[in-house]
Structures are given as structure tokens and as C-alpha cells.
């Protein structure tokens, strides 16, 4: 049967199991949008800016594990996607971005709204295509989805000239992609796994650093088995948060620049690092030449290019985390490591990284702790970028798998709201809180309209400190407190919310926090709370730039610490 290019796209997307598309149309996509109503399985969500479409597709993909799909017209629509595509690429998020392009005869002529989007996105996609005839639409879509979701996931862009959407061709959807040279390695090499097991069984002070690869691979059970069987303390990267229950006795929180002091001390003192699905980003390792100076390193990663890229590795294992851990676990001997764990628990007691100062002022950390309490720790938390992101990472206990969604590699302010919308659309039964900064929110605040129009019940907590706070903190600490271009005025967020058609509340005092959160949760639709927080609060612990993990700075006041608690890592709110 002959179909138009546009119809073939619709058919192919349905065949790939796509349920939601985030996008904005334009002239070059009119043929495609015209056929969308024939595919009611494809819910289209109209965003207000294409960056929002890409972030929403990203949030949807992270929350569901499925491929997120976004759609934008040629020229400015396509370039508006760029930040969102780069964001997905750096955090290995499966995404297919479809852009309209000018008709084939106009390509290369600087036609109206023509940009070379395949050229522009080449370094920030896993792969991209310019489709030059209708007959190749089905195989292109097949390949694109396969590439996006397999191996190390990533964004794939398909550029579709307008006339290709109109041309007709025979529609046969291939059952398999034609990509013979693309073969991600899933199974780890048995000899390497054996070597790793030997190192683990002999180690006295091992530490696991778990990253986003564990979440991508959904290897939650396998990781837990390894940790418990071998009694290995575990820390995570920022993007590894929620790959392992944080209230587990062997969980020591996040490492890195704003990681827990005791997590960084553990890595520094370790004799064996088992890095699982993480890529040794410089925010995680701090000064890389002084990283884990006493340790052998085992690195499990699906991408061979990550191995040995930043850190010298003794036992590389290329493969999928789940497949590798299944094999590795068979060779692990049960162990106790009492002294090592006691040492870490002492550090945790002596260096509590998460104490919230008592008193009147509304501290941002306190707000997060209250969200934790009211949501029973069961919400999915999506963040912007800045101090609030770090506090959201630190002060919420993530016990449920895959419940922390944040822009790590690109650190994109403006990610929070659209990504939260995407996550909520993908998992409508989950509670989704967007914890955002006043600066970050203003970068994509227009997506409030999307949430209202599409009835997406995201709850938004703005940590309103009147600063581009993270940068202000650096100016305070390293630039003589010269606050250049960081003081930030904002509109009245409650009025803005109301203008967009959702209810909002302003909170300025501690005792109002929990009731406001409860009110937000009781509301069936989206809700915004504007928390006016302490303006010059800083994120601690902090490893200053250029320093090693061992040189972690703790919050000055915290030297007066509470009496030892069993797990003082994350004190329950009632203790504050």
C-alpha cells in the first residue's frame, strides 16, 4: 500500500510504541501535523518553546525508560531544540527528535527557515539523518529508535524535508534495523569478571560508585545483591541518585563537589573502587590526579570509550550493568568488613553533612526536608540547576528506584519545569515535584501554560532566594563577595501562576511549609509554591574547584553537631 511520507511517519511511530509527542508545528511540518489526528494513539502535547519540547521528552524518557519524542519545525524550531538535545546527549537519555526541513529543491539555498540542523547537531546526537526520499522513512525511523534506546542511549535526530512528507511510497515497516556494524556489547568478558571478583573478594576497603548506568540498565536488584552479599559501602554520582535505597545502612550518599563529606572520605581512603555505570565526571572525581589514590579501579560501562578516558582503570568490563552484575554476583564470596564499615560510620557521625540549622529563618534545606516528609519519600523529584538542585539531591531520601531527575552533564537551567511535565505525563500515577530556582524557572516558565492546557498535575516548589544562587556562592567564596550580575528580581510567581491558570501560594515561614505542601498535594491539577528562602545560604559540603575529594569543606557552623544518632546522615525533620 502506498502512503505519503507523513502517513509513514505516523504509522512508524505507532509501530515503535510511541504514546506521546511534545512539539510545536510550523510550515515545514504541516503535512505531518495534518495526518496526526488519524493516529489517536499518539498524544500530542503542545509546548510553548521547543526547548521545552526537548526537555519534556527527556523527562518523559528518564521517568519511563521509553524513548522520548519531540517535534519541531525547520529553522528556529530546530535550533530551539538544540539545548535540549545536548542535555539528553550528555546524560545518555533516549530521545528521537524530528525536525521539519525546507523542501529538497531548496536545501542549500539559504531558503526561508532553512538551517543545517544535521550539521549543527552532529556532535550532540548519537546519530542523525536527513531523509531524502519518502521510501526511506520507515527504515530511518526503525534505525533511529533502535539507536536511541540500545547500547548507551542517546538522542537521534531525523530531519524531514517538507516534500518528503508529501511524496508517496510503498510502506513496509522493517522488523529489524539494518545496522550490521552497530553492535553494543552487553555481556561482560568472563575473564575480566573473574578478575574483578578476585579483587573484590580480596579488598579490605572497597567502595562502589554507582551511576546513571545502573538506572538505565534497571539493575537495582543486582546492585543490591552485590552490596549486601559483599558488604560494600556504596556512594552514587548525582545522576546515580535513586539507583540504590538511600536509607540503606550501606548507602553513604552522593560523592563529588557537593557530595557528603564521609562519601568523599570513603572514596579517598578506599583500596578498591568499583565504578558501575558512571563516567568519572570531574564534578564527581574532583581533582582527578588525586582521585582514590590508594585504590585499584574496576570500571563497568557499556561504552568502551568511557573506559580509561578520565581515570586509569585496572579491570575494565565493557557491558550492560545488569548482565555484568548477574555474572559477577555468582563469584562474590559473602564478607563482613566490619572495621571498614565502622570507620565509615564514624566518619558519618563525625562529619554530619546534612544538619539543618534550627531557628526562625526559612532555609531551603528545610523546605526540601518537608517535601520529603509530606510525600513520604515517594515522589519523583525533578530539578532545575543551581543550589536548589544540590539541596534537592542532598536533603531528600531517595529510596524508590529512579525517582530523581536532574540535568547533570550539561547543567541546563530551565530543565526542571518541562522535564517535570514530561515525567508526569509518562507516569501519571506518580507524584511529581519540580524543585526549581527562581533563576532556572524563569528560563522556561512559559511551560506553565502547557501544564494547564494539558492538565498535567506537576507540583512546583520555587526556592526563591533572589539570586542566581550557585554563582553567587562562588562569588562569595572565590571572588571577594563581589556579586556581579547575580542579584535577581523575579515577578510575583503566585500572580504569574494565577495568570497562567493554576493556583499558587507564597510561603515565608517554617510553620507554613508543611501545610502548603499538603495543600498542593490535595489539589488535583498543577500547583506552585513560592518559598521565600534565606537569600545567602550556601551549599555544603563543598570540594573547592581544583581540590581533591579529601579536601572537602564542611559548613562552618556545623562544627557544633548534635549527639550521635544512628544515621545522622539525613536527620529526620523532627530532630531539627
Amino acid at each position: 500500500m502506498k502512503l505519503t511520507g507523513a502517513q509513514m511517519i505516523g504509522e512508524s511511530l505507532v509501530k515503535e510504541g510511541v504514546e506521546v509527542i511534545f512539539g510545536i508545528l510550523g510550515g515545514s511540518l504541516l503535512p505531518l501535523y495534518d495526518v496526526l489526528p488519524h493516529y489517536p494513539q499518539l498524544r500530542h502535547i503542545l509546548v510553548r518553546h521547543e526547548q521545552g519540547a526537548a526537555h519534556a521528552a527527556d523527562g518523559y524518557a528518564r521517568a519511563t525508560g521509553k524513548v522520548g519524542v519531540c517535534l519541531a519545525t525547520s529553522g528556529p524550531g530546530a535550533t530551539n531544540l538544540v539545548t535540549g538535545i545536548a542535555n539528553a546527549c550528555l546524560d545518555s537519555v533516549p530521545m528521537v527528535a524530528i525536525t521539519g526541513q525546507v523542501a529538497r529543491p531548496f536545501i542549500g539555498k539559504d531558503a526561508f527557515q532553512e538551517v543545517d540542523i544535521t550539521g549543527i547537531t552532529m556532535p550532540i546526537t548519537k546519530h542523525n539523518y536527513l531523509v531524502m526520499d519518502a521510501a526511506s522513512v520507515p527504515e530511518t525511523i526503525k534505525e533511529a529508535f533502535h539507536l536511541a534506546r540500545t547500547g548507551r542511549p542517546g538522542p537521534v535526530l531525523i530531519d524531514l524535508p517538507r516534500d518528503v512528507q508529501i511524496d508517496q511510497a510503498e510502506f513496509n515497516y522493517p522488523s529489524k534495523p539494518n545496522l550490521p556494524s552497530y553492535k553494543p556489547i552487553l555481556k561482560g568478558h568472563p575473564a575480566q569478571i573473574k578478575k574483578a571478583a578476585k579483587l573484590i573478594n580480596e579488598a579490605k576497603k572497597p567502595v562502589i560508585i554507582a551511576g546513571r548506568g545502573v538506572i538505565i540498565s534497571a539493575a537495582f536488584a543486582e546492585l543490591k545483591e552485590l552490596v549486601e552479599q559483599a558488604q560494600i559501602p556504596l556512594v552514587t554520582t548525582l545522576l546515580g541518585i535513586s539507583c540504590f535505597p538511600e536509607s540503606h545502612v550501606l548507602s553513604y550518599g552522593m560523592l563529588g563537589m557537593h557530595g557528603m563529606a564521609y562519601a568523599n572520605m570513603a572514596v579517598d581512603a578506599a583500596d578498591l573502587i568499583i565504578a558501575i555505570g558512571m563516567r568519572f565526571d570531574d564534578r564527581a572525581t574532583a581533582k582527578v590526579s588525586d582521585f582514590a589514590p590508594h585504590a585499584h579501579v574496576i570500571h563497568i560501562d557499556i561504552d568502551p570509550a568511557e573506559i580509561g578516558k578520565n581515570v586509569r582503570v585496572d579491570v575494565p568490563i565493557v557491558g550492560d550493568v545488569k548482565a555484568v552484575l548477574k555474572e559477577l554476583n555468582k563469584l562474590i564470596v559473602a564478607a563482613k568488613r566490619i572495621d571498614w564499615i565502622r570507620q565509615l560510620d564514624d566518619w558519618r557521625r563525625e562529619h554530619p553533612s546534612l544538619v539543618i540549622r534550627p531557628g526562625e529563618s526559612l532555609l531551603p534545606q528545610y523546605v526540601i526536608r518537608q517535601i520529603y516528609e509530606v510525600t513520604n519519600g515517594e515522589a519523583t523529584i525533578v530539578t532545575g540547576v543551581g543550589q536548589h538542585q544540590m539541596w534537592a539531591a542532598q536533603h531528600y531520601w531517595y529510596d524508590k528506584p529512579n525517582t530523581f531527575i536532574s540535568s547533570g552533564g550539561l547543567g541546563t537551567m530551565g530543565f526542571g519545569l518541562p522535564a517535570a511535565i514530561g515525567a508526569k505525563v509518562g507516569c501519571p500515577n506518580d507524584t511529581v515535584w519540580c524543585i526549581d530556582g527562581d533563576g532556572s524557572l524563569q528560563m522556561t516558565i512559559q511551560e506553565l501554560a502547557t501544564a494547564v492546557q494539558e492538565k498535567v498535575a506537576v507540583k512546583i516548589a520555587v526556592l526563591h532566594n533572589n539570586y542566581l544562587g550557585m554563582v553567587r556562592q562562588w562569588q562569595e567564596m572565590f571572588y571577594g563577595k563581589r556579586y556581579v550580575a547575580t542579584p535577581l528580581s523575579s515577578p510575583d510567581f503566585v500572580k504569574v501562576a494565577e495568570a497562567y491558570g493554576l493556583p499558587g501560594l507564597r510561603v515565608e515561614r517554617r510553620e507554613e511549609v508543611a501545610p502548603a505542601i499538603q495543600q498542593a498535594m490535595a489539589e488535583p491539577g498543577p500547583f506552585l509554591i513560592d518559598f521565600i528562602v534565606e537569600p545567602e545560604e550556601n551549599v555544603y559540603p563543598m570540594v573547592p574547584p581544583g581540590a581533591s575529594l579529601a579536601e572537602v569543606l564542611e559548613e562552618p557552623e556545623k562544627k557544633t553537631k548534635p549527639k550521635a544518632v544512628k544515621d545522622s546522615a539525613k536527620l529526620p525533620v523532627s530532630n531539627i
Partner: protein
Amino acid sequence: MPKHTIIALVEDKPGVLNHMASLFRRRGFNIESIAVGRSEVPHLSRMTLVVNGGNTMVEQVRKQLDKVVDVVKVSDITSDKVITRELALIKVKATSSTRSEVMQIVDIFRANIVDVAADSVTVEVTGDENKIDSLLNLLRGFGIRELTRTGRIALTRGETKPLPVKKPPKAKGQKPTK
């Protein structure tokens, strides 16, 4: 720094060279030469790269190239048994008094004169880089007007394993372009 020879088999698509070049630039890889041309498989090109750098850096080049979807196969053949060749065209100043001397040198190197003009000759030479460098050294005294070199091309000696090759495009021109 040691020189490494890397061979890459790539899909013959317009975007591929661009992709690889952008990858080298972005990751700061120091590429001394690239030579590309058709291979024995209709839609694949074979690329020979000469890379300057330590083992870790060259390993990254190889792995990053391998990640490009249109790259079918990458091998570092530096320590293999290989045949390497380069072609150079050299336009040398040659007056009536020096022409015969130039021709003698060309003969010794088993090179050819492919064009003669009133005050110059153009020499074609193939061989490994050392041979070309030596010839150039001798000709420099006469005055080199123009020079172009292809960069190294290489093949391993002996048996070859079959390639993971994509089914050729269907008759009715599926020509993915970038």
C-alpha cells in the same frame, strides 16, 4: 611522539567525513594525515589516519571513531605487518643546466617525471614517507615550486576477515544524505 596508523572503514555518505573531522577537532586529537577513497565494498570507503600521540590518546581516537554509527570498523594497525604508501607530486625548478641532474635523482628513487615545462619538471613519487622525505631533501636544493602529498594509505599483509557489511541499498535509490 610516536605515530600511529589507524584504518577506518566508513559508510560512503556525505556527512561522515564531516562527522569525523568535527570529532577530531572537538576532542583535540592531533591528526597528521587522512586519506580516503573507495574500498572493495561498493558503499564503503577506507580511510587511513596517521595520528600523533601517546597510547591513551590514540586509544581514545579509536574508540570515539568506533562510536560513530557510520563507521563500520576501526583498527590501530601500528604494530601489525602493513604495507604503507604515499604519493607525492613535486614541481621542481629545473633549468637547462640543472634538468639532467634532477632527472638522475628522480631515476634513483624510481620516481617519474610526469610534466615538463620551460623552467620546471613535475615529479611523481610513491613509497613510504621516508622515501618521499629523502627525495624531497635532495630536490630542495633546486627549488621546490609546488608540493602535494596524499598522506599515508595502508593495508595489512596476509589474510583478512570478512566485514560486518550493511545490505546494499535497495535498487530504487535510498541515498541517505547528510
